[in-house]
């Protein structure tokens, strides 16, 4: 411990060099989302049947399962970055902010892993009866 003030301790050290990372990742995942969700919405319009059998066959194809997995991963990283900003801007209590941020991380990681697992299982093992 030294007796300097907080500002005195950091003055002259320069930036932490992490300032642009969150901002840039948010834009990169946004561009990815434009491409992947456009693919998804067009697919929804072109799927011939919404019965279970044809849908499961559709989702199990490599050229559907792969972009679907990419879309789930990309959307949830974008969700993490975006909702983090909402929490930072609107939750002012430090304890509540910490709890919200923890819950947000649980939410995005659990959801993304669940979605990817569901699609991968169907693609690898085929549709159940």
């Amino acid at each position, binding site marked *: 411990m030294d007796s300097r003030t907080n500002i005195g301790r950091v003055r002259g050290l320069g930036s932490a060099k992490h300032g642009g990372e969150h901002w840039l990742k948010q*834009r990169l995942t*946004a*561009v990815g*989302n*434009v491409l992947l*969700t456009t693919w998804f*919405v067009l697919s929804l*319009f072109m799927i011939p049947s*919404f019965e*279970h*059998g044809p*849908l*499961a066959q559709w*989702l199990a194809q490599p050229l559907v399962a792969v972009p*679907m997995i990419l879309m789930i991963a990309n*959307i*949830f990283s974008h*969700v993490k970055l*975006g*909702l983090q900003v*909402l929490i930072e801007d609107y939750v002012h209590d430090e304890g509540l902010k910490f709890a919200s941020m923890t819950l947000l991380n649980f939410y995005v990681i659990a*959801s993304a892993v*669940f*979605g990817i697992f*569901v*699609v991968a*299982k*169907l693609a690898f093992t085929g*549709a*159940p*009866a």
Partner: protein
Amino acid sequence: MAKNPNRPLSPHLQVYRWSPQMAVSIFHRATGFVLATAGMMTLLWWLSAIGGGAESYATFVKYVVSAGADGSGVQIASNWFFRLVALAVTFSFFQHLASGLRHLVLDIGAGYELKTNRTWASVAFVAAFFATAFVALFVASRFIGVL
């Protein structure tokens, strides 16, 4: 230090007249939240119902799409709830997409002239409204049997 409640505060949201630029900004956050929660949870339910087999998909259809002639009261109520969710998520998707594209243009430093900025903020709302109307009419005619 005791705070004096009579101290003057700097002007905040309530003193400004609403403009499209302000509205599109807060709508970007609100629609992002709707997509991240209601949108993604419904998508994951749909995917896992497909992966779970015919029976699990039938349950999804009964609660979300159509309860059918022998549907229970809860399922019919759930259908209407999900029709509202679908409308909100569809509008949120197009609104977030349109204002997100606007943000990408602003990020490269273009579109800050007052008139241009205002125009494209309005365009985001108009585009989202018409795209939502198109999808709603399409779904109503093809899947719900209305129209």
